[in-house]
């Protein structure tokens, strides 16, 4: 078996004229929590669906546990826990029926763990899914996804519908538990503080392209936010190598740069600017710099 849990190579997918995924290649290493971030419609769910075999690669390849998820759905899906964005569960099922039914498909089902989670969430097992609130559905779906202690946990926007307490304490605990057991979790979200809090590794997707990937620490260390003051007023800045975005506030500019920020500093100095403050950029700032409206069309290292 391959060392990586997931291997995606040159994956492209087009829906009509929209390029949902464009030559995406990535590896998912075991034992880590991977955050998949991107704006709405960036291609996060499309990528997830490819990992589950719900979309067949038209170009490129997808391997999960070294297998093609379309050709080997049983071997792949048995080892995956998945929570869909739509919280799609049969309305007529009772919570206990949902647990029993899901259990039949997973030999590794951990009943005490499932009961513990049911207690923690305070879900009434006699209730039908249609009687549950949106948040409760998410909780029921989450239990069904994690109670068999999957080797790979895929959560598509898991926070949607969960209140702040559940999101902070329980979701984090569940995802951490999965990773600490040596298992792998991939979760997509556009709540960047949440991704920053929970992930070890980040994949950033924009318009179907993987624009950034790496460990969270490396990404944050590799990106700097520079506050720059210019002595003469400037309306615009030229494109500088390594500069990702620039935002003007009067004479001051907030510049996010990556890689060779020494080179950026030197270039700014030559333009008559002075760096008044520098710190590591947050994931939110990096995301906005990479996919936001203020990003620059500059060459990157």
């Amino acid at each position: 078996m391959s060392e990586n849990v997931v291997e995606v190579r040159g994956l492209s997918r087009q829906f009509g004229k929209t390029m949902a995924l464009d030559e995406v290649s990535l590896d998912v290493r075991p034992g880590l929590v991977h955050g998949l971030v991107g704006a709405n419609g960036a291609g996060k769910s499309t990528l997830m669906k490819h990992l589950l075999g719900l979309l067949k690669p038209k170009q490129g390849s997808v391997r999960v546990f070294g297998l093609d998820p379309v050709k080997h759905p049983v071997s792949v899906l048995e080892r995956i826990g998945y929570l869909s964005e739509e919280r799609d569960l049969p309305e007529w099922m009772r919570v206990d029926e949902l647990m029993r039914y899901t259990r039949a498909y997973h030999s590794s089902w951990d009943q005490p763990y499932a009961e513990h989670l049911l207690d923690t969430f305070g879900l009434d097992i006699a209730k039908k899914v249609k009687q549950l609130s949106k948040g409760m559905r998410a909780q029921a779906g989450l239990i069904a996804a994690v109670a068999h202690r999957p080797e790979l946990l895929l959560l598509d926007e898991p926070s949607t519908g969960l209140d702040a307490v559940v999101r902070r304490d329980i979701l984090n605990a569940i995802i951490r538990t999965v990773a600490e057991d040596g298992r792998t979790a991939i979760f997509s979200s556009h709540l960047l503080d949440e991704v920053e809090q929970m992930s070890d590794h980040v994949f950033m997707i924009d318009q179907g392209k993987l624009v950034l990937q790496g460990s969270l620490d490396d990404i944050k260390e590799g990106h700097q936010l520079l506050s720059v003051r210019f002595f003469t007023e400037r309306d615009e800045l030229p494109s500088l190598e390594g500069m990702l975005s620039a935002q003007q506030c009067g004479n001051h500019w907030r510049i996010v740069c990556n890689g060779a920020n020494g080179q950026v500093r030197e270039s700014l100095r030559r333009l008559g600017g002075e760096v008044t403050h520098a710190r590591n950029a947050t994931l939110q700032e990096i995301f906005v710099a990479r996919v936001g409206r203020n990003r620059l069309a500059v060459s990157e290292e």
Partner: protein
Amino acid sequence: MIWELWRTSCVEWLFRIGAQCGLVVWLHWFAKNLGSGKTHEQHVIQGLMIMMLAMTCLFSMTWLNHLDNSRKGFSFRLGFTRPVSTVKLVVVPMMFVTASAVICFLVPAALLGWLWGSSIHLLSLSTGIACLVTCFVASAWAPTTILGRWVGMAIVAMGFLAGMSVFHVQRSDSEPFFLAIGQPGYFEFAWYHYVACSIAAILAVFVTISGVERQRHGEAWRLDMPWTAVLTKLGKRFDTLVSPRQQFASKFRAQCWYEMRRFGYIVLLLGVLAPFFPLFFSILATWVEPNWQGTPVAWILALAICPFVYQLVGAEGSLGLRRKQGATYLSPFDATRAAQNGQLIATKLFIIAACAAAGWLWMGVTAGLYSTLAGKWADWGRIGEVLPNVMENVPGRWRVAAIPTAILVYASSSSASLALGLWLALYPRRIMCGFVVLALHVPLVFWDARQDWALQGLWTAYGYLLAAAILGGGLYIIWKAVSSGYLGSRLFGGACCLWLVYVSTTVAVYVEFVPLNLFPPVVIFLGMSSLLVPLAALALAPLALAAHRHA
């Protein structure tokens, strides 16, 4: 609002009007070619056409879509948060639905009148249709429960039937209803008919506005009748009864339970209720004509037809597709089951077959019980004599082979229905175009028959082409399903065993009973290639499911 309604229904509108006009033209041509120039026959055909046009307009998809039972009450709930008064929110879509139904009727009906050269009372018929559609829409939108919706619709339907009966009796026509409605002046309304229709429609609009106003503010009409409590209790009892008491021993059992809950009990319920049709028919026929001896025929017909009815209902129910924002899709919950497509399909086919078998047996038991209790066994006499003689002539090995053959044929036809349903959701236009092309051949066949088969070369070429398509397509489907892993080797092996029995039995029967030199080579070639159909049909449903599951 009108743009929104037009945008979501214009394709269906144009399709319906086009299809109905096409049907009117085709029927006119067909009736002419059959030499049906007599006024009497013309009235019957015209009457049936008027009824058909009116009925299809009543149940236009424009408002049938709004009868989706997963959404109770008013269909345009999104409008509740718009700055629009409830009156406008209700009246605009209601008028649109009514007007669209009337136009869908008017265009083909006017064409019918023009082609047949007879005057149809379009104004009175349109008024009647508008009134009925308004009442139906009111019955669908005003109640907030499914039961309330069906009760409302049943009341409207009964009201319509009562109204039609009174109207027919008032006209004091000596002819039966279906003959009378084709006559030119039949639907001529008096002023009080228009007044009655208008009052009914206005009442329906007011009831709907009142009901929707309550729904907009989170209230509902409640009918706390005794039966509501009883039904709730029965529902809970049913849930407890069918709920699994312990863990499922295997994936297959879990999936069977799931499919059974999803659609199996509906097929079973249908199976329990279906025998009441031949039963009532037999009782009614005996009541009208005490010496009626058609009981066996009625029950044999019911026994022959019911498995296919159960199959169609089961196949439709087992699709498990969902609709959201105009898109049809397989729910991720179903799509992420750790099972092969073949296994998921096999479970569906098993439940369809099991429920159909139970329903069929129940039909047989009811036939026996009725014949015993009503003393009708004497009517079965001739069949009772013929059947053992026929069976005696059938060799033992064929009787044994009949069971796996029947299983294969039923499973493969269920699989084909399932595949058609799944693909129809993905490619409705292509499939409909295919059907239209096929239907266009029917008048060609009739025409050619009258020309003493002048196009025999074309039909022979079609025969060879069809045979080649069956062989090529069938082998490709099987190869695709097996090589892509959609159909597992165990399931495929089982299907092949059944298929070999089927092929050897069919060939043996033909060799024994049918002299092959009677048929032209094209028929023999077609017959031989069609032997592949059951196996290919079995591989079809996993492929169709894969089209949804793996997109």
